């Protein structure tokens, strides 16, 4: 689907034979870039994105022994990050109350493509209900499969499929690619 995932031969690495520092270096090498993009999008603030990432990596370091397979590393890391983000975001919410309001100048400052088309896409994504948006963000930004998303979000794979369906359906409607629901399956009343 997306070509965001760039593990190359990473998945075949046997973590058990590896010392902790090496394992950690590989984790950073393979996943910090995707995680940064995800983090920035979630936090909408560079300093906070890095803060949360740094905390998440510290936690990852501390429980690195529990990570046995390289192919599980990304989901594991994103799970840690999401938990840390929820924790910190709750704590800092009063300071970051404006992050939900999007404007193209703020986007450009964060380094995002400032063309109107790109802004429209991000704006459409923001307008999705959270439960639809989350799996789509993970798929598009993290390159996760439906099964991986299911395990990170702790829901069934079929629930992930349904949410992804609704997310893309609604994106297409917001962007005018699809005028009205034609498949009879989009019944969300959440606006």
């Amino acid at each position: 689907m997306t070509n965001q995932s760039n593990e190359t031969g990473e998945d075949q690495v046997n973590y058990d034979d590896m010392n902790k520092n090496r394992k950690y270096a590989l984790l950073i090498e393979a996943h910090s870039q995707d995680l940064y993009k995800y983090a920035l999008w979630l936090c909408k603030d560079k300093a906070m994105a890095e803060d949360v990432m740094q905390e998440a990596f510290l936690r990852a370091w501390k429980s690195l022994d529990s990570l046995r397979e390289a192919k599980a590393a990304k989901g594991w890391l994103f799970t840690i990050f999401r938990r840390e983000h929820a924790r910190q975001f709750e704590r800092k919410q009063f300071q970051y109350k404006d992050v939900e309001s999007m404007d193209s100048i703020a986007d450009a400052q964060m380094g995002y493509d400032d063309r109107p088309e790109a802004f429209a896409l991000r704006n459409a994504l923001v307008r999705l209900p959270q439960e639809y948006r989350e799996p789509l963000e993970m798929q598009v930004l993290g390159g996760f499969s439906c099964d991986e998303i299911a395990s990170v979000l702790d829901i069934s794979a079929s629930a992930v499929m349904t949410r992804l369906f609704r997310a893309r359906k609604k994106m297409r409607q917001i962007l005018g690619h699809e005028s009205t629901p034609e498949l009879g399956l989009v019944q969300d009343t959440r606006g």
Partner: protein
Amino acid sequence: MNCLEFKRLALSDPSSSEVSFVEHSDTCPDCLKYVGEVRQLDADLAESLNVEVPTDLKARLKLATEMQEESEQRSSISRYAIAASVAIALFVGGFMVSNQFGPQPGEIGKDYQKLLAAVVEHVNEQPMTPVWGNARAERTVNTLMASYDPSLSFNEIENLQFGRICPMGKYRGLHATLESANGQTTFAYIKGEPVGEMLDHSYEGYVARVKPVRGGNLVIVSRTQQSVDQAEVELQKAMVWDI
């Protein structure tokens, strides 16, 4: 698989390799076009969310953990010094240039007072920094430098005590300290357009200096003119550009 089922799966998992999905798209031009649009939307969306990742991010993540480890290992004997008398902040600049945040290179010259204020305020906010052994401080600063600006190397400074990447105001840089007769010392290097000339400025009880250097600016903040001068001489010897 009929067209309705196909479109449903296309929206859930447009890269599905399910046999019936692939077969349907081979025989139904309408659905092939549909899944093509969905894939394009995904690609466009991914592109709209793409940003340049800071070049020193990986180094910072490694260092943060290393520092945490070391501070836990010797927490009982950890020494902290108050950077009260002298403070210099070393900015490994250009983070903001490379990630399109903060002033563009051409604006840095105009922005020097903001820069000084950011450094001094950061020092005020964080008056305590750890005192490391020289070897560790050297290693840390060199790692950060290398990840940021491969053309710049940092030669031995025997009184280097500490270095860390910190956000300072709207900038981000390496906050490093030197030991001096009257306490700690910090300094800053910002990659970008050098200011035209050296400027001294007093700010909240500090003497602050911006010095244009190759490829950027050095920011020095301290309590006394003498400490600024001394640090400047030391840094002049220590910072070496390849090109």
